[in-house]
């Protein structure tokens, strides 16, 4: 009999996981408390990482770049493939350059240094005082459309996608989760949903959701502020050639430029507001990269909470990558439940593949993941 899996969370991780599991032939139901992508994923700045931002950790950088290539291959229509540019604005940036180039090479990321003149010819709105520039294979995307593509692909393999269905409790008996209790906000009823395995893919909310089953997840919600400007100041992604820091990136997609980001840690991702000083800092730092940004109207200020992995208690987690972790809840009395935390939007497919391997192993399913080779359905197929 086909095994049933419930995936909780309709962000990019849950969506990619629903697709991964459905491709393996499992019967998947995805539950999301709000609309699709209404949590962290929908609110990213929309950067398809080349990995260059993380070159200090070559493993993470390599992982980003290889996923970047996979996503462009399986869904070329989702990404603006104009690349990115890292620019040195001051002396400290310039000092970082040799390290940066060496690490990019180690990670196997194809980058190319260009002269100041060439950089300004390609992107006339960059700071004219720039001291060095490196082209990198960044990309940009509309986050919602990527999530919908994963879900459309999952639906085509029989997955049941239920937005506006919030998990409000779990029924745990004899060391197993038997069912989730769900509030359906479309028809205002509550119901129970049984399954063979449950995955908590709620990211920054993973601790809150796990707590409903008496379980713990070491996630640290880490919000970041982004400022969206009305107008597009470049085609490529603008990055500061330095260690990752506040306000060191401008991401362009459609007709918008987004200056990102800041970072702090909170307890509850449902109680987050953008501190005014963060907005001022981002605007100031954005001007250093592209002075013209000071002339653009601020269209929106928004905050998105990353699901950072906290310290993993011995034996409860299995760090499958440097950047994300699958938490096995067996030892806490829920043998058929796992939580997945950490990661980046760019690495969601890989997270889903590894989580899918974990779930498949537990359910005795031997079908391997096929998401890296199978073309994604277009996002509009979600609606048809």
């Amino acid at each position, binding site marked *: 009999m086909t095994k049933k899996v419930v995936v909780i969370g309709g962000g990019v991780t849950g969506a990619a996981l629903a697709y991964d599991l459905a491709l393996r032939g499992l019967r998947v139901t995805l539950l999301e408390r709000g609309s699709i992508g209404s949590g962290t994923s929908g609110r990213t700045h929309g950067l398809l990482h080349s990995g260059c931002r993380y070159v200090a950790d070559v493993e993470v950088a390599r992982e980003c770049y290889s996923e970047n290539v996979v996503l462009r291959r399986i869904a070329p*229509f989702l990404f603006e493939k*104009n690349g990115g540019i890292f620019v040195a604005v001051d002396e400290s940036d310039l000092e970082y350059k040799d390290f940066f180039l060496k690490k990019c090479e180690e990670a196997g990321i194809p980058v190319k240094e260009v002269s100041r003149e060439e950089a300004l010819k390609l992107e006339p709105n960059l700071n004219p005082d720039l001291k060095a520039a490196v082209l990198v294979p960044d990309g940009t995307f509309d986050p919602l459309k990527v999530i919908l593509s994963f879900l459309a692909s999952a639906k085509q393999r029989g997955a049941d996608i239920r937005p506006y269905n919030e998990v409000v409790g779990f029924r745990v008996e004899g060391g197993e989760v038997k069912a989730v209790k769900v509030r359906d906000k*479309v028809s205002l009823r509550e119901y129970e949903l049984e399954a063979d395995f449950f995955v908590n893919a709620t990211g920054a909310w993973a601790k809150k959701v796990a707590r409903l089953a008496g379980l713990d997840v070491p996630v640290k919600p880490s919000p970041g502020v982004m400022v*969206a400007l009305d107008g597009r100041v470049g085609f490529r992604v603008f990055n500061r050639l330095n260690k990752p820091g506040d306000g060191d990136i401008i991401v362009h997609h459609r007709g918008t430029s987004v200056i990102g980001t800041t970072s702090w840690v909170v307890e509850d991702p449902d109680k987050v507001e953008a501190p005014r000083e963060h907005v001022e800092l981002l605007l100031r730092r954005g001007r250093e990269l592209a002075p013209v940004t000071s002339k653009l109207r601020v269209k*929106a200020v928004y905050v998105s909470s990353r699901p950072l992995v906290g310290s993993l208690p011995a034996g409860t987690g299995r760090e499958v990558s440097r950047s994300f972790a699958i938490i096995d809840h067996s030892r806490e009395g829920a043998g058929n439940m796992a939580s997945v935390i950490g990661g980046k939007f760019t690495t969601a497919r890989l997270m889903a593949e590894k989580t899918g391997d974990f779930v498949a192993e537990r359910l005795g399913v031997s079908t391997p993941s096929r998401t890296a080779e199978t073309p994604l359905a*277009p996002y509009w197929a979600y609606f048809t």
Partner: protein
Amino acid sequence: MRYRLVVRRYKQGWREAEYRAYEVDVDPDTSVLDALEKVSLEQDPTLTFEHACHHGVCGACGMVINGVERLACVTRIGEVARGGVVVVEPLRGFRVVSDLAVDKSRMFSQYALVEPGTLERVDGVVELEKLFDCVECGVCYSACPIANTFPEYLGPSVIALAYRSSKDGKVPAVLDSRRGVWACHAAFECSVRCPVGFKPGETIMKVRRGFLSGKLGVR
């Protein structure tokens, strides 16, 4: 500042919609979307609405705000409130799923006409690609008097996207029909309400001129 959000509520199985008022304390430059989210998190978890990017690029949060179609994420509450009151209703011209969330399949089901050009080529120093400026929010359907009364109409954004992704001077044949550009009454509400200046109305007129002059063919 204290604002009163009056939200049109509808749930599956209800005979008719009802309006419910929520009081919310926010700055005047808070977006209507953030105010709605605050209500859903603090007062009423059953309140449903579509949202994702919160900065005007994904098109999820199109709504009718004090009678006018807007993206709730880039609409400051202080700029649209009248006497501190903001009435929020779902987009017109689509089936209501739950409260402010509507079913946009009417628009997206026509996207076979738009394929494969979801990326726009841009002339520049080198070849560049960008996503279309159209954010696919459905605001133009809601604002259009024809889309509201003629369910088979392809709709403003789909016609404009089909034209923008045309190849060798040819567009899908259905554009040259009663369901296509000839249904338009040139109200231009689509262009007026479009939150990103995509101007579907002007494109529809261009396609008409193309058909009449024979410069635009069908495939």
